């Protein structure tokens, strides 16, 4: 019985860094298919795979709850923060989430500033929130606290 487990554990331990690298690659998806949601779910899938193979205790140690809560809220802060920044920077002339009215327009033209903001700021924020949410959901549904044996 332990022989079979050795094969599975070694395979999963070898595959995990490649899955996470692919997840980060897909997250900045403006040159091809991809985007924030897809990359976030692939990152969450790597942690879920670790939790399935090695047990829920070690899985929760690899992704502790304080980090999950921090990433969940921080992703949302980034998204709404960029929206508030556009209102404050143009002193009320531009609308909420009008990406042309930020600090980047002083250095590069309008179109390139919009491209940079979409690919590098907004999608990473969405990816963080989605990944942390799915990890937290899975471990909450699976967790067994041993008070009466059943949770």
């Amino acid at each position, binding site marked *: 019985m332990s022989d079979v487990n050795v094969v599975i554990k070694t395979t999963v331990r070898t595959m995990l860094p490649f899955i996470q690298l692919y997840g980060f690659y897909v997250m900045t998806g403006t040159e091809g*298919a991809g*985007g924030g949601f897809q990359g976030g779910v692939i990152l969450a899938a790597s942690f879920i795979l670790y939790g399935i193979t090695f047990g829920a205790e070690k899985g929760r140690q690899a992704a502790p709850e304080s980090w999950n809560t921090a990433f969940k809220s921080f992703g949302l802060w980034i998204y709404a923060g960029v929206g508030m920044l556009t209102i404050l920077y143009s002193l009320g002339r531009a609308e909420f989430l009008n990406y042309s009215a930020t600090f980047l327009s002083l250095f590069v033209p309008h179109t390139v500033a919009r491209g940079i903001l979409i690919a590098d700021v907004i999608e990473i924020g969405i990816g963080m929130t*989605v990944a942390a949410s799915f990890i937290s959901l899975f471990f*909450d*549904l699976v967790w067994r606290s041993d008070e009466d044996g059943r949770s």
Partner: protein
Amino acid sequence: MDVAEMFLARYNYWSFVVLMLIGLYGAIAYGNLVKKIIGLSIFQTAIFLLFISLADVGKDIERTLGLKSGTAPIVWEKGIEEGYIYVNPVPHVLVLTGIVVAAATLALALALMIRIYREYGTLEEDELKELMG
């Protein structure tokens, strides 16, 4: 409208109707709560199929306009010169939002079912009606 036009040229709408009605029947007629959730999931994916099939372009284009078929909505200069046209990207955006919201509501429904089973010990609808009073 003759039979060929109503059934062969619009077969994607008929497949959407069949799948949606299977999901709806599963949500109404079965008593187990997990089967109801599965029926609702089939219903939701059938609706997304309707949106995506409205956006597709290019079934008879080779015959009528002399172009090749449609291609994915990513800008591709060489393809436009060869004669491909883009499919409609607006329904893709709406369906992406829909898929993610469907997954979130599924997770919440599962958490509610775990609490119900912990309290009452059963997942059938008729026994729950008697136990809840």
